[in-house]
């Protein structure tokens, strides 16, 4: 399908000097973050008095903590997408599998304990994955069509079951659109470190307090599920890139015919990958239901399955990049929770600075049109910043979607998806 095919074609244009690979080293990433922090501190020092607190909020531990908890469900959905697409199956059904996760997580969670809910949510998502695998792998249905159908089905099924099962529970908080309350999942705070960082943060020292805020958000009130998710990221990297199982699974996504000729049971690997994918998306749903709100709520996922997919594309089908993408989207998603109008307003200036630098680079590389576009956008953002005091709170929820579009627009061309992704495969019919 042509869904993302054009992206890969352009990036391998021949006749150019060898390009820097799309992957950035850890050092580069850290340097970019450090540079952004320094730039932020300088901007804050330059900004006037009443804008100060808006800039401080960009790196406050509250904002970072919220960003982390928004990033986890997006990251888990993206991780689900990663498993499926590495085996060559596009999974637009992540959204539906997340919905199944929220519903079954809360349903089992309120009756027993939250960890049983986690298990039930993962299983619910995995069943969604199994349906997707049956449709795409066994029956060869177009992957995107099957995914869309699963989203419709999951929404219909959970709405119906919620009406049947939760409506009679109005005495303990159930309703046709909502489940009863589920108990807390344990959360941790690193003792000593958290308080110490909070103290440093409150001093508002140049750069140091920003760093303290960032770290403080990462060590305060961390849900056990967040830790599980981080382990899953590490585990995914290990399994897919360091074991023979992972090599075989990825070979099904790159060249299933070659894998078949080496004796790999491609169907089995694809099934495994898509079911795991559904389970991970289900876990993302559970996180939304049990950690973020303690209940199932109709429409709770709000398209995060799709954003997870975008995070995975942004991360170039690699867990590290995906984690960065999820962090970015989680951060912008968290802004709306924290009355983020002034913060978004302050961020405008930071983004403008980034765009101005990008414009300079493009001009230096003699790509005048692209440079002019970036520069123009930067000027407009600075004007917007200067002429207003805040961004209307009604518009703040748009941030993650605009960020997604912007980032995809800037980054999509250097991506390389698994070669046989979204292609039908039939055993014994390879050419």
């Amino acid at each position, binding site marked *: 399908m042509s869904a993302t095919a054009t992206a890969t074609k352009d990036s391998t244009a021949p006749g150019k000097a060898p390009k820097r690979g799309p992957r950035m080293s850890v050092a580069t990433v850290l340097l970019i973050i450090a540079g952004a922090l320094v730039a932020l501190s300088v901007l804050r020092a330059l900004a006037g008095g009443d804008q100060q607190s808006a800039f401080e909020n960009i790196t406050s531990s509250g904002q970072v903590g919220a960003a982390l908890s928004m990033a986890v469900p997006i990251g888990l959905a993206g991780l689900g997408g990663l498993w499926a697409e590495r085996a060559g199956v596009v999974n637009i059904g992540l959204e539906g599998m997340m919905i199944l996760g929220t519903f079954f997580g809360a349903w089992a969670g309120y009756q027993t304990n939250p960890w049983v809910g986690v298990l039930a949510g993962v299983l619910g998502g995995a069943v969604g994955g199994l349906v997707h695998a049956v449709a795409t792998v066994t029956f060869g249905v177009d992957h995107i069509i099957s995914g869309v159908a699963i989203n*419709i089905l999951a929404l219909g099924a959970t709405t119906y079951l919620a009406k049947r099962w939760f409506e009679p529970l109005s005495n303990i908080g159930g309703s046709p659109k909502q489940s009863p309350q589920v108990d807390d999942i344990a959360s941790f705070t690193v003792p000593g470190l958290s308080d110490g960082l909070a103290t440093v943060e409150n001093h508002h020292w140049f750069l140091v307090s920003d760093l303290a805020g960032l770290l403080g958000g990462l060590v305060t009130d961390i849900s056990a599920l967040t830790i599980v998710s981080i382990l899953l990221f590490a585990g995914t990297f290990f399994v897919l890139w360091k074991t023979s199982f992972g090599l075989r699974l990825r070979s099904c996504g790159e060249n299933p015919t070659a894998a078949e000729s080496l004796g790999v049971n491609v169907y089995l690997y694809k099934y495994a990958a898509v079911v795991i994918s559904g389970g991970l998306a289900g876990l993302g749903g559970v996180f939304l239901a049990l950690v973020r709100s303690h209940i199932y709520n109709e429409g709770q996922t709000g398209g995060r399955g799709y954003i997870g997919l975008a995070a995975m594309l942004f991360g170039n089908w690699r867990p590290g990049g995906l984690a960065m993408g999820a962090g970015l989207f989680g951060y912008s998603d968290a802004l709306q929770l924290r009355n983020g109008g002034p913060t978004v307003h302050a961020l405008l200036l930071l983004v403008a600075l980034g765009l101005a630098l990008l414009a300079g680079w493009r001009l230096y590389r003699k790509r005048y049109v692209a440079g002019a576009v970036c520069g123009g956008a930067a000027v407009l953002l600075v004007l917007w910043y200067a002429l207003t005091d805040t961004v209307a709170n009604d518009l703040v929820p748009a941030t993650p979607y605009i960020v997604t579009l912007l980032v995809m627009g800037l980054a999509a061309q250097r991506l390389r998806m698994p070669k046989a992704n979204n292609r039908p495969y039939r055993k014994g019919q390879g050419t």
Partner: protein
Amino acid sequence: MKKFDKERVLLAVAAPALALVAAFLLTALVLAATGKAPFNAFGIMFDYGVKADSQVYILNKATTYYLAGLAVAIGFRMNLFNIGVDGQYRLAAFFAAVVGGALQLPGLVQIPLIILVAMLVGAMWASIAGLLKVYRGVSEVISTIMLNSLSSILISYLLVDGRLADLDKQTNIVSTDPLPSSSHFFTIPAGGDLDPVFGFIVVAVLAGVGFWFLLGRTRFGFDLRAVGRSESAAQASGVDVKRMVLTSMLLSGAMAGLIGMPTLLNDTHQFTSDFPAGIGFTGIAIALLGRNNPVGIALAAVLWGFLERGANRLEFEGYDKEIVGVMQGVIVLCVVIAYELVRRYGLKRQQQRVGAELAAQARKTDPEKEVAV
């Protein structure tokens, strides 16, 4: 050869029929598993669905759904997944309502103007995704989904008392200015004390004919379908694929702009926050069900209207109308699987037939060689 065609028709009908039977069985299982008598429910839905007032309701619903199906199908025909029909039609209907409410022109001028605004807004919103795909390689699936969310946010930002809408003090409903009565679309009386049929059904039929003509009878349509079948082959034969992507995205968006019009011009005459949502996704299901074919989409749209009408009745008979959501999801999934199965079966039959014919030919012309092989 004549016989072969008959078989193809049979196969084409077999797929949806098979899928519908499977879907009803699966839904029956779900109903039975949740402690409800399944076949009684289907009986209630059918009895109620064929009543005269239900038929008017179904036709009116189907008008909207048909346009949605067409909008999605334009993209599907060239393998372009315009998931963003949902955002496109809502934004289009909103701005059309704003423009319509602000003007006081004669209906003959204003109605086409409102429709034109809707089509333009829909096309422009879709063009963002088209441009991103063509110039930046962004998958239209992702970008249209983001644009859906953005359009909802944009509408809820503008649909506020004092911005582009007014608050009705009595009912406490925020809405755009109502259209002047001169720009109400004509209706077709259904006789007796029944509600009239939306006049927009005529436009929908015209849109269907236009769709058929454009895709089936013009060079543009041929190019579009060629890109859908094989992008590289189309490129090699001189089709500008990028321009085709952009054009079909614009067409799909313009068609999406029409989706809100039956409701706006024939029914509500203003845009409120409870303007029907989610029809873009219904359109995806309907386009899949109707096989991207103008007649098939019409049948699917009527089926969808029928299911929803029947579901409303179920509520009064002790069932939950949400079962229809399950039914619709199962139908879509069964349909896509059935089409694929039937396609494979047809392909196998064709290969066998061709093989047999070739073998027969070889025997006739060259009997010695046959023995040698």
